[in-house]
C-alpha cells in the first residue's frame, strides 16, 4: 500500500502545534506517518523518506522563511533517487499577506506538487493525497476525520 508519508516543519521554525494536528489527522485517516518534527533540514526530510520508502513528503513552514528553506528541495530529492515522490507544502508560506496565486506559483516552480494557503484543513490535504496516490481512503479502514 502506498500510504507512507514524512511530515515535518522545515528550517529554524519551531511552531509545533500544527505539526501535531497534521500527524493526528493523517494517522487517523490510515496513513503511516513518519513525523520528524520541528527544526528539520531538507536532508532530514529526504533521509527519512529514503529509509522508510515514503510516498509523499509534507512540509510545513509557519514563520515566514519558507521560500529560503525550501529552495532546491526537489533537486535534492531527485539526486537521492526520489524522483517519483510527492511534495506538499503548507502553513504561512510567506511573510505577511500576499496574493495567493503568486505564492502558489512560486512554490510550484520549486517543484512542489501541491501548495496550501493558511487555514487549510487537514481533511482537504488528505483527500488530495488519496487522489494523487490513487488510494481508496475507505480501504485504509480507519476513522474518517472531518
Amino acid at each position, binding site marked *: 500500500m502506498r500510504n*507512507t508519508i514524512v511530515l515535518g516543519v522545515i528550517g*529554524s521554525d519551531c511552531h509545533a502545534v500544527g505539526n501535531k494536528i497534521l500527524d493526528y489527522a493523517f494517522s487517523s485517516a490510515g496513513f*503511516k506517518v513518519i513525523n520528524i518534527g520541528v*527544526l528539520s533540514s531538507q*536532508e532530514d526530510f529526504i533521509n*527519512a523518506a*529514503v*529509509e*522508510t520508502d515514503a510516498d509523499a513528503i509534507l512540509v510545513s513552514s509557519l514563520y515566514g522563511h519558507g521560500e529560503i528553506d525550501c529552495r532546491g528541495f526537489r533537486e535534492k530529492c531527485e539526486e537521492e*533517487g526520489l524522483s517519483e515522490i510527492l511534495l506538499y507544502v503548507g502553513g504561512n508560506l510567506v511573510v505577511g499577506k500576499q496574493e495567493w496565486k503568486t505564492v502558489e506559483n512560486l512554490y510550484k516552480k520549486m517543484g512542489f506538487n501541491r501548495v496550501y494557503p493558511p487555514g487549510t484543513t487537514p481533511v482537504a490535504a488528505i483527500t488530495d493525497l488519496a487522489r494523487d496516490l490513487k488510494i481508496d481512503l475507505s480501504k485504509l479502514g480507519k476513522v474518517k476525520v472531518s
Partner: protein
Amino acid sequence: MEAVLLVDFGSTYTKLTAVDIKNEEILATAKSPSTVETDIMIGLQKAYSSLKERLKGIPVEFAEKYACSSAAGGLKIVALGLVPELTVEAAARAALGAGARIVGTYNHEIEMYEVEEIVAKKPDIILLAGGTDGGNKSCIIHNAKMLAEHLSDISVIAAGNSKAREELEKLFSDHKMCYRFTENVMPRLNILNVEPVRQTIRKLFIERIVLARGLKRAEKYVGKVLMPTPAAVMQAAAILADGTEGEDGYGELMVVDIGGATTDVHSIAAGEPLEAGINWYGLPEPYAKRTVEGDLGMRVSAYSLWQTAGYQRIRKYYTGSNSDIEQKCLSLSEQIDKIPVTDDDFEFDAALGAVAVQMAVERHAGVLEKHYTPTGLVYALQGKDLRGVSCLIGTGGVLVKGRDPQRILQATLEGGFGEGRLIPQKPQLMLDSSYILSAMGLLSNVYPVQALRIMKKYLKRIV
C-alpha cells in the same frame, strides 16, 4: 590454591592475568609477544612460564580459564546500509560496540568495484543493514544479491528491513552462505537498536571467527575465547559505571585506550544535554558507545597522527630539543615494536599520547552548534554531552608503562571545548596501572561482583 586464569590474545602481546577470586586479588600478570602468524601456542607458553615465575612458587591450580582476542587484526567488519547518516551509521555503531574493527562502510546499492574493495578488505563479517521495518527494501535486496553472487564465503549478519527477510533468506541459503538474522538496527526512523546486533556479532565470533583465527587449538588450554578484547574493555567499563548486584559503580564514566595503531574511547553515559533549551539532533546515542580512531596511535599510526594533529598541537606537549617532529613520527611509524629508551623517547611518547587521547575524546564527544533564528540564539547538540562524566580512566601501554600518565590524561581536559565539543569538565582521572581492564571485563561474565571490586581496588586515582 585455586585461581582463575584470564588470557588476552592481543595483536602485539598475549597477556595473562591470574586472579584469586576468594580474596579478590590479582596474583600475577605476565605477557609475551603474540605469535598468531606462526603458532599461537608459542607466545602463550612463553607468557605462561613467565606467569609461573611471577607467582613466586605459590602453588596455583587454574580451575577456570577464559580468553578474549584481538589477534590477527581483530574482528574485521564491513558495514552496509542505505543512507550514510542513518542505517550505515547505526550499523557501524553497533559493530564498534561489539568490539569490531570497521574496515569499510558502504551506502545505497553497491557496485561491482565496491564488491572488489570488500574482497580486498578481508572482513570476517559483513553487517548488512538498510531500510526501516517496512521501509525501503530494494537496497538491502540488491546488496544481498551482490553478496550472495560474489562474496558467498563471508559470514553475513542481516540487520535491516525485517520485511525483506524471506527474500534474503532464500538468497543466502541458495548460495549456501553462513548467515544470521537479527532485529533491524534501525527499526523505525531514528530509533537505534544496537543490542541485538551486538549479541549476534558476539555469538558468531565465538562460533566461527575463533576457528578461523587459529585460536581453536589454544582453546584446549585456555578455555573458551568468549569475546573480542575491545568488547571486554567495554564490558569492564559498563560494570564499573553501573555497578552490579550489591556493589555500586562509579557512575557515568569514560575509558580511553591508547594503542599503537588506534585510540579507542568508550563512554558509558546517557549524554543528554546538561542544560534545558538545547535541542538534541541526529541519530540517538547508544548509552555504551565506543569510537575507534584509526589515524591516532603511538606507532603504526604515528605518522597519520602527525598529519592530522600538525606541528603546533604536538609541540605544545613536547618540549624536547629535537623539534623535527615529522621525522620522529615517521620513524616511529616504521618501528612498530619500538620501546622507549632515552628520556627524549619517553617524552615524545607522552606528547603523542596526550595529543592522541585529546583528539580522540574530542571526536567522541558531541558538538554544540549555535543557530541564529528569528527568535534569537538556539543551541543544537549533535552527539553526547559528556561534560558531567564523573570519571576518566586511562589504559594502554603509553599510560601504563610510560612516565607521565597524569600529563597525558590531563591533556584530554584541555581539548576543543572552545569549538563546542562537550568533553568532560572535572572528571576524576584514573589509571589502569595493573593493566587489568580487559581481563576484568572477561571475568565479569562469570564473577561480576568480584570483577568490579577488583577494579575498584586496583585502578589508581590520579590527582
